[in-house]
């Protein structure tokens, strides 16, 4: 896949972020059916999937440079978006190794990793061409990097990252790089266990979803990562929709009209993967966020119709929890004319290979 980056686009201020036709067609649309409800929708994270966004362990796309810059801006304003508890150093190195190895293997034009050995104490050289970085360091020695290894490598990756320590038959959120979150706070959640940080989610607890998911994750095996999709909506293509910055983006929810919904309302999809880490036995939880305006999304006819059907049948508790209530009517009014009632194929693929010209 050739990558043409769009380094100037922004996720704040003038919000110049847009998706190319190719980026639209590879979008991980999250709805295989016309209705949505929570489930343990976990499947093996293999090198294939319904769109191209699923096909690599750690996905990079045309927004890579702009997203890394937006993360740096957020961290400058609030360094607390990256936190690592002291017992997580082995997991930090595990994360750095996993990301560097996979990025270098999947995107050899952009990244390269040269090692003099695999064990702690070996000299490694990392080259990141899109960001203009060449780093010589000693694997296992944090003093040879400009910052700790987890922060170092996640500043050079798209999406948020959390690491869960496994102990007492539970998972503890003991590290995170969280700058593109769907309205949750790392500073609030750091150190919490799996049941604690999922506490606010409505409806799913009654279905026993979290007990099953936790038991499953405790048995997650090295070499067999899994993935799931989660979704919400955002007004404007904004990565940093955190509680800490709510005054900057919350009021935008009141700005949506039927006329402007197509460009303002964005579907926000998280391709979440889970990886057993080799040295620390912790679990890495990358949360890769994809944003698309409903206007862009509707260029895939199946997706526009299906989004209307899902949103118009969404349980009110879910709409409230995801923060959609205020602008849902305008969004539905914008989408409604697209739905001709035709039967849609099950599955999330776009079912077309080219978009009709604008």
């Amino acid at each position, binding site marked *: 896949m050739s990558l043409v980056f769009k380094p100037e686009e922004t996720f704040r201020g003038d919000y110049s972020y847009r998706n190319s036709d190719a980026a639209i067609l590879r979008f991980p649309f999250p709805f295989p059916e016309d209705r949505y409800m929570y489930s343990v929708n976990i499947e093996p994270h293999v090198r294939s999937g319904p769109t191209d966004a699923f096909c690599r362990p750690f996905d990079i796309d045309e927004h890579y440079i702009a997203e890394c810059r937006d993360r740096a801006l957020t961290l400058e304003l609030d360094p607390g978006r990256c936190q690592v508890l002291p017992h997580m150093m*082995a997991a930090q190195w595990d994360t750095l190794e996993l990301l560097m190895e996979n990025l270098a293997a999947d995107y050899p034009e952009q990244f390269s990793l040269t090692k003099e050995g695999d064990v702690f104490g070996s000299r490694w050289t990392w080259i990141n061409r899109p960001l203009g970085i060449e780093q010589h360091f000693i694997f296992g020695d944090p003093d040879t990097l400009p910052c700790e290894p987890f922060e170092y490598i996640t500043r050079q990756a798209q999406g948020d990252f959390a690491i869960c320590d496994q102990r007492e038959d539970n998972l503890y959120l003991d590290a995170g790089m969280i700058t593109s979150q769907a309205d949750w706070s790392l500073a609030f959640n750091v150190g919490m266990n799996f049941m604690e940080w999922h506490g606010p989610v409505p409806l799913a607890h009654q279905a026993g979803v979290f007990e099953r998911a936790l038991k*499953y994750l405790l048995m997650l095996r090295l070499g*067999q990562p899994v993935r799931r999709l989660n979704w919400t909506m955002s007004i404007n293509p904004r990565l940093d929709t955190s509680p800490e910055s709510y005054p900057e983006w919350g009021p935008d929810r009141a700005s949506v009209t039927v006329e402007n919904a197509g460009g303002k309302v964005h579907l926000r999809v998280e391709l979440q993967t889970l990886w057993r880490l080799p040295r620390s036995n912790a679990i890495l939880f990358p949360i890769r966020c994809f944003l698309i305006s409903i206007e862009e999304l509707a260029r895939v006819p199946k997706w526009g119709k299906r989004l209307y059907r899902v949103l118009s049948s969404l349980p009110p508790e879910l709409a409230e929890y995801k923060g959609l209530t205020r602008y849902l009517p305008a969004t539905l009014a914008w989408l409604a004319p697209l739905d001709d009632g035709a039967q849609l194929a099950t599955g999330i693929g776009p079912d077309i290979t080219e978009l009709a010209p604008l």
Partner: protein
Amino acid sequence: MIGDTLELIVVAVDDIASSLRHVRLAAADGGPLPPAAAGANIQLRLQGAARTWRNAYSLISPPGRRDAYEIIVRRVPESRGGSAFVHEVLKPGDRLVASWPSNLFAPQRTARHHLMIAGGIGITPFLSYVADFAHSGASHALHVCCRESETGTFAPWLQACGELHHYWDADGHRLDIPALLARQPAGTHLYVCGPAALNDEVIQAAANAGWPASHVHCEHFGAALSGGTPFTAFLSRSGIEVEVGESESLLEAIERVGAAAPCLCRGGACGVCVTRVLEGEPEHRDHYLGAAEREGGELIMPCVSRARSTRLVLDL
């Protein structure tokens, strides 16, 4: 780093004591192996003349080592035969299929002090613990119960051990477990790996002394997650009878004969492969079915569960 089986080649075998064989394994393709954590094990598929064994062995190589895996196998006369195979048949150049490393006995990274008690060959997981703690600087002590003649056997792997004690069966040399536990600082995590009698004694002593269960860890070598006694499954809708072998899951057997079986997680959690049982008694190993559903005996998760009866009839 995605995969589930490894092709390994035996690089070296050395007898480090009369009943202990050290085996060094590398990737058959010469490439790097997946890194592994302290306490990890691999399952080796040992292909004998008449049958195949799947035995799990702790990795004793330092955590993160990717050029080779090392294991130590004690010859157990009454074993199922896998250890005898390693001692009598396995030689350099042989190829083996192994699982990726897995870990049911990882050290607790929040511990202020790690107290390890080993019995006999149960020392093997602690050889990688010691290497891990030596690198991280974590406070630790290893107490080894063994034969007097074997106190030096593992010395090559214990040079970096911070505090090391040996005990054997003679007056003045036995381990006083309650006394050892009583002098530990708060925040200590206790790990035990040895014969069942030692494990039980240590766990009981810790409970008697008021240790929280969350701070007491015992290595229990798991059998294969999905394997067990062979049985027969009859798929009533497709009219196919399939023999489920001891080292394959029911789901794998169903897939082998080409019957359609929807599945997702393959770990007993997602519920997608739930199947109606028409006859026979399931042995439930999943996390999905509730207690009432289990007792009802009308549903099974074929990705992990098996049969108590010799035959299951499934609505597939």
